[in-house]
């Protein structure tokens, strides 16, 4: 699946997007965050405060308990500050 990152999540990871292939044991958004956070220092910093990172599956807001299922794209970003 494709992972996309925005704002300081993007800056801390050092990538705007990438293809990821989590193992089958990763079922939920929260488990994917745990898996990503273990990939390296940038990821660990980006996901250090789990509460501060929001997620969207296929461009719809989701929470940590949401199953990833067959989603094609997952996005991680800070709380939004538009308007």
């Amino acid at each position, binding site marked *: 699946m494709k992972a*996309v990152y*925005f704002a300081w999540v993007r800056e801390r990871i050092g990538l705007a997007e990438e293809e990821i292939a989590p193992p089958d044991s990763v079922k939920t958004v929260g488990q994917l965050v745990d898996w990503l956070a273990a990939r390296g220092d940038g990821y660990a910093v980006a996901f250090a405060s789990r509460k501060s990172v929001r997620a969207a599956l296929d*461009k*719809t807001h989701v929470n940590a308990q949401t199953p990833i299922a067959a989603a094609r794209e997952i996005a991680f*970003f*800070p709380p939004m500050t*538009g*308007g």
Partner: protein
Amino acid sequence: MVAPTVRVQVEDFDVAAEEALLTRGRRDIGAVVAFTGLCRDEDGALAALELEHYPGMAEEEIARVAGTALARWPLAGLTIIHRYGKISPGDRIVLTLVAARHRAEAFSAAEFMMDYLKTRAPFWKKTHRVDGAQGDWIEAKAEDEAAAARWATKSSDPAQ
């Protein structure tokens, strides 16, 4: 069935022209409420804002919020324009136009739209400072969450 107009763009917008488009040929509209969000200079400290967005989701999420507003109030028309990219103090960032038969629903729906946009539309603002120091990402405010939360009702929570 009212179809909202949603645009996410780099370019500036013309408030009067957008209002004219929204009300063109209509004789049933009694009220248009316009909200324009501008870039503040933060007492001279801010050189510019850089607005990042999530292409695709930004439009979809604004349209979802607009759909919730249309389901909740009897509106005659809705236009939302949100800019991204580099924006200087004094420049326009966002426009919400709500047309209705009467002012009460137009005011309420416009405030609802802005409260929800702030917390749900995927945009992020980074500051560029006049003194050249490293700017930072603006942090979401708890009062913005509270402003959005007050619209939630037991029977129709728009966040669901």
